[in-house]
């Protein structure tokens, strides 16, 4: 199992806590880079020598929202190769279509119950741990 560098773009503090707590409770060694919004994330991604392996992206964010951010990402010749998984509450059909149209590696709905969340994240990370990824 690979150790992943995960860029979590999420404005909700508790959501960030949830992911951190999930990884530690699952005793995984993935490294989490936090960005509170799209702008911050872009700044982080500017340093192309330390690019994340995958990006977990929330859609409803202030300033640059998730879909806008996704667009910027996919227009970048380097960044477009980073698998981006949407992690959102929105089951809006329009959002789903739009995201897959622009190009996402997955679309995961945040469940209400924390246990369900843990289960989903475990599977998600397990899946990406066994994937071959393009290293920058």
């Amino acid at each position, binding site marked *: 199992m690979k150790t992943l560098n995960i860029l979590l773009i999420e404005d*909700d503090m*508790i*959501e960030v806590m949830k992911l951190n707590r999930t990884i530690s409770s699952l005793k995984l060694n993935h490294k989490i880079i936090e960005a509170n919004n799209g702008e911050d994330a872009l700044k982080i991604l500017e340093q192309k020598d330390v690019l994340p392996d995958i990006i977990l992206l929330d859609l*409803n964010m202030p300033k640059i929202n998730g879909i806008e951010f996704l667009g910027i990402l996919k227009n970048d010749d380097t960044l477009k190769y980073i698998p981006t998984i949407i992690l959102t*509450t*929105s089951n809006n059909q329009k959002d789903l279509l739009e995201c897959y149209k622009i190009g996402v590696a997955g679309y995961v709905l945040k469940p*209400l*119950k*924390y246990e369900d969340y843990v289960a989903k994240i475990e599977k998600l990370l397990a899946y990406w741990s066994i994937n071959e990824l393009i290293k920058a």
Partner: protein
Amino acid sequence: MSQEQVEILQRALTREKNARKAAEKILEEKSRELYFTSQKLENLLDEKSSELQGVFENIVDAYVVIDLNGNILKFNEAATKLFGYDIDREEVKIAKLIYKDDFQYAVDCFNNLQTTGFFKDYETRVYTKSKEVKWVHVNGSVVFDKNNKPIAAQGIVRDITEERASAERLIESENRLSTLILNLDSGIVLEDENRNIVLTNNKFCELFKINAQPADLHGKDCVTSAEQNKVLFKDPEGFLKRMSEIDDAKELVIGDELEMIDGTILERNYMPITIGEKSKGFLWTFTDVTLKRTYRKSLEAQKQKYYSIIANMHLGLVEVNTNDEILMINQSFSEMSGYSEEELLGKRGGEIFPVEGGSEIISIENEKRKKGESNSYEIKVNTKQGDIRYWLISGAPNYDINGNVVGSIGVHLDITELKALELQKEKLLLKLEKSNDELQEYAHIVSHDLKSPLRSIDALVSWLKEDNKGILDETSLKNFGLIEATLEKMEQLISDVLEYSSVGTDTNLKAEVDLNKMFSDLTTILYIPEHITVKALNQLPVITGDATKLQQLFQNLISNAVKFIDKEVGLVIIDFEDLKSHYKFSIKDNGIGIDKQFHDKIFKIFHALNKSKDSTGIGLSIVKKIVDLHEGQIWLESEPNVGTTFYFTLKK
């Protein structure tokens, strides 16, 4: 005898001798004279007889001489030609020449000849040698010898076949003409200078109700007759007055109209007939034109009717020729456009009124009309006052009686108000669409924003539980459990509200939906306990609709049915019926049933009958909304404790 005596005697003798000589000489002279005279006479006779001979031989008419037994003695050239016989070579009897029907007449004639010595103007038919029948005119007389004894008969025969034929033709055509006049469809009266009837016909008697034969009217006085007939007319004195006026003028009058008291309308013409300088009388003709007039009257009435419709209708009417030049407008169009008829006549409508490309529309549409198409179109126009108006124009080609397009007639309706409403509607629709979209977005965002805190609370509660394992007492744990249940309920409520608000949108997703596939998908998605069977009685149809929403419809109803089954063996049966335009579905369960008083209420939002953990009261409202979207209806039959059947229809 004395010398004297002798001398006397001798002198007397000499005298006598001389006298005799003189007489002889005279005689001789006379006799010579006589001789010459007789010679002359003889010559003259010869001349005359040869002259006569020539006359007979050469006269144009045939000359025939017969003996008293009827044998032909002599034919001149014309006779030979007429009869075809050469009497020098064959013997011909006159009897042979007579036409058999005229034989008795010939015999009578011959007898007449014998008694009186001649006959005249005998017309009869004869046979020629070639058996042709000819009409001849004969004048004949008896030939006597010097003792006054009849020895032969001679006749001049004239061929009158042609004459006779043309006379017959003339009679025939006269007959025809008189029959024609007699039976003419117009009544006629021909009167002479003294206004006496010369000729009239049946139709005249009929029209003037005269109970007599036309021939009986001959010679009657027209003035008296008119005095008697005037009662037939609505204006008797006028009838007489006009008649005498015409008679005084003696000039051609055409087309006078007379109205009779029985409603008949007569057309009267008057014609002096003159041949050369000579007056041949005056011809009155009377024609019954009642039908024609009433026809024309009703035509006139119709025309008047349509004219007033056109004049008074609230539609603008414009007639143009093939060059789009205005020929006629009605009052309404004048009001609509602000122009008077005089200002528009001869102008091109397509150039005066339109704005914003209207001229092109008009010329395109005009072309279509020339091809005989009717059409209607809208244009934006400028009135004389400069107002912008919208007109709906419905045009049709105008034909002449030969079927050629000579222009078109356009009916104009001012639809400005309508157009304004339409534009307003379009704007509103756009706005509505936008606000719908916004609302949809809003609902999603709100639901996201509402759900996020719930998720956070849930995470925090679960961490509290986790971090305080073994420390928390039963009650606290139970309360945490209640918090979690409440959170779930809240989450469900938000989801349902979002779903309900989404049902009305995106209705354009129409597709063929195989309900069998959908049903088998549903049975795997839905939680169905062991003791409950859900089945479709028949193969379900394929219908057109929104796949997601149809699934939601069935899902909500089936899960409802499953949810409220209280029996040990649960049964949910799905069936359908093919109605004409719709399918009628039924979903029947043997659950707890629904009291009649709630049957209407349950489809209203937030009317959950059983407040429970997994019931928000929105499910059936969504169902109703989806059925509405598919132009159907939903209702139910239920008996408490026995079961419920939901029925709904979906348009095919």
